[in-house]
């Protein structure tokens, strides 16, 4: 478990890391092999194989219902909460199989944070929203340290300026965009290694969206980010690599420019040119 201090040291590390991710020897953070997922009788994912590089942004695109969220939720085992959901295959984070019975799911979820499609702050104060995770994992020994983590997280989610004077007010009282940034602050407060974002901007206006995209850019310095999006432009703007899902299969995966300028598969081409739907 990374210490609270590691946020600050990480923040000081070079911004070159993000661009390095696209260069040849990629450090692989997440590996999926032969992942099949079914909800009861209905199979939602078929034989998904993918490698995701550390400290980069990977975008999942694809038509609705193709299984993007399903796959995303496999990476922090959030699917465990759905009783009928069955996952087979192998998903590794840092080379360790996360479906290994030895693995502690709760620990895993602390390492693999998640931001949901709809902002879902706890019905508690802004401070409590951010402090909840660090407190749970004993990342701060006293109030001052906790305050520091909260401030740092809110700053990195570029929310600090707006809420620094009303940390005690309920998080649910913020605007939609602010709530989503609060959720991002909450996710990064526990210093996860990977952040999963399921359509984080779908409920937001263009300005809030732009701020979150900026934020994602900054976060790549330290975190591995996997983002599901329905906006092709967003995928192009924020991600280094893009994966296209269709009908539960991973059709194509590659550097973002290549996917958008020169897709190998007809279906990818049809989708990104808006030929179906």
């Amino acid at each position, binding site marked *: 478990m990374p210490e609270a201090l590691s946020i600050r040291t990480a923040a000081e590390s070079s911004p070159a890391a993000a661009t390095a991710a696209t260069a040849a020897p990629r450090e692989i953070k997440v590996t999926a092999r032969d992942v099949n997922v079914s909800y009861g009788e209905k199979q939602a994912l078929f034989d998904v194989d993918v490698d995701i590089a550390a400290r980069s942004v990977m975008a999942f695109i694809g038509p609705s219902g193709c299984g993007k969220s399903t796959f995303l939720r496999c990476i922090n085992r*959030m699917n465990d*909460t759905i009783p009928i959901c069955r996952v087979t295959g192998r998903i590794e984070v840092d080379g360790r199989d996360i479906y290994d019975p030895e693995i502690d799911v*709760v*620990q895993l979820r602390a390492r693999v944070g998640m931001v949901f499609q*709809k902002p879902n702050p706890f019905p508690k104060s802004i401070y409590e929203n951010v402090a909840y995770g660090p407190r749970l994992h004993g990342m701060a020994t006293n109030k001052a340290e906790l305050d520091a983590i909260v401030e740092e997280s809110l700053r990195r989610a570029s929310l600090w300026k707006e809420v620094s004077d009303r940390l005690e007010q309920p998080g649910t009282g913020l605007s939609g965009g602010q709530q989503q940034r609060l*959720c991002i602050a909450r996710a990064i407060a526990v210093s996860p290694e990977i952040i999963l974002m399921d359509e984080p901007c779908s409920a937001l206006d263009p300005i809030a969206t732009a701020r979150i995209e900026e934020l994602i850019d900054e976060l790549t310095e330290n975190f591995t980010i996997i983002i599901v999006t329905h906006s092709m432009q967003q995928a192009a703007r924020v991600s280094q690599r893009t994966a296209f899902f269709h009908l539960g299969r991973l059709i194509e995966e590659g550097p973002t420019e290549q996917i958008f300028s020169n897709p190998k598969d007809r279906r990818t081409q*049809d989708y990104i040119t808006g030929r179906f739907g």
Partner: protein
Amino acid sequence: MTDLAVSRPVTAKPALDVSSDAAKARIRARYRAERRFRFYGIAALVVTTLFLAMLLVDIVSKGLPVFKAHSLVLDVAVTQDAIDPAGKRDAATIRAADLAPVMRDALKSAVPGPLGRLGDRTLVRLLSIGAADDLVADLLRNPALIGSTIRTRLLLSDDADIYLKAKGAVTSRRGDGTITPDAKSGAVAIAASGPAFAVDLARIKAVMVERARVLETEAARLDRSGGAAVSDKVADLRREAAELLGRARDPAGEETLDTRLPSLLLSINGGLVKVEKLKADSAVGTALLPLSAASASSDWSVVTYATPAGDRKITDLEIALLEHLRATGKVEAHFNTRFFTSGDSREPELAGIRGALSGTAWTMLVTLVLCVPIGVLAAIYLEEFAPKNRWTDIVEVNINNLAAVPSIVFGLLGLAVFLNFFDLPRSAPLVGGLVLALLVLPTIIIASRAALKSVPPSIKEAALGVGASHQQAVFHHVLPSAVPGIMTGTIIGMAHALGETAPLLLIGMVAFIVDVPQAITDASTVLPVQVYLWSDLPEPAFQEKTAGAIIVMLMFLFVMNAAAIMLRRRFERRW
């Protein structure tokens, strides 16, 4: 862009029709239906409100008098000889002392006398058996008062109290002319200078005609319902009616005033004569209160007690005494604190709801302590942790069934299990609480599950997402958000338990218990059972108590329901 399907040929759709006659008729029909529905809604509302208002008005009008009680305020000479001849001044002596003689003396000096043996006994019977309680309390607090004269409150008996609460029972008419009594006490014959009593005689005869008509109607009704069994009764009624009419038809005839006719009394020379035989110009009767002189007087009046003596619980003499005491300012109406401070009693004026209130409080405490933790934990487990399989389905269905089981069945269960098997004390709040807990548990579980279910899963997912365990997510986030709903359900369940009677009858909480219970194992009763017990008693004062206890119970329920609504308002969260 949800599908790969290439555009399909679109078949021509009929255009939306808005202007044809059929369309207009459809719109009119829709408006009609809406108006009809609104009318039904309002009608339903009016009917329910009406019933509720009727119920409330009835109970409040019957029950409000219970919060008032009447006492006599008298100067009682507490002599050392009567109370504490040995001069010990200790509590035991004061408690053991017989205060009846000193109270009787105080009473006697408050009314004109002498009244004779019967009069004295009647006088003492005006007081409650517990009349001396306040006096004893005073003496215990301050034994130095023994030997002095104390102004104290002596509680009146229930019949006297009821009489004093009833309004307009006594009317008085100033008499004209001069009348002359022939004695000061005992049998008194009164001669008038003219037809001084003609008005009263006419009034009595009118009452007789009215009464005859009532008897005729009753006879006719019995006759119609038929049968040989009632034929004697019908004949009796007819005979009586005919006799009454016969007497009434003779306007000048002498009238004997029996107990089925209003009581007439002549107030003259400071005394009161009960009229037994009345003519237009003379009367014969008995002195209830002795006259000061057997001399002619022009300052006299006729007092009428409209309710016939046979239809009331209080005699003419008692009324005469009470009216005298009231006229001399000795009667005091005050708040009936005893109703809230004492337990049940055979004497209505001494009976209170304190015992039932304490019993209810203990019972509710047991119920609450058992129900809330068990119910909430069961709900959390079922809603959040239990595997979804056939067993949990069966449990769930049965919890819902349990909520619909008639409450008396729980009483039988309590009798069989808690009393007969576990041998717990009978009539105790402990067992009552256990039984009510069984009754309320399903309600609380169902309400709590609904409250837990209404917390959006996104909150739980958010907690899981930052690395909280399932249990932490539930206890840190889901449960706090569900608390208002759980509390509302709990309060409604408890309100239900508060009014529950049937199961408690079976476990013996229906006994007559005078002592206020001090623990959950003491024999006691609860408010609704107290209402049930009192409603069964014949004394009118107990009818009043019944309504009073209902008012207290309803207040409790209103407060609890108001609390539930307030909690809901205050903590209601929109997601």
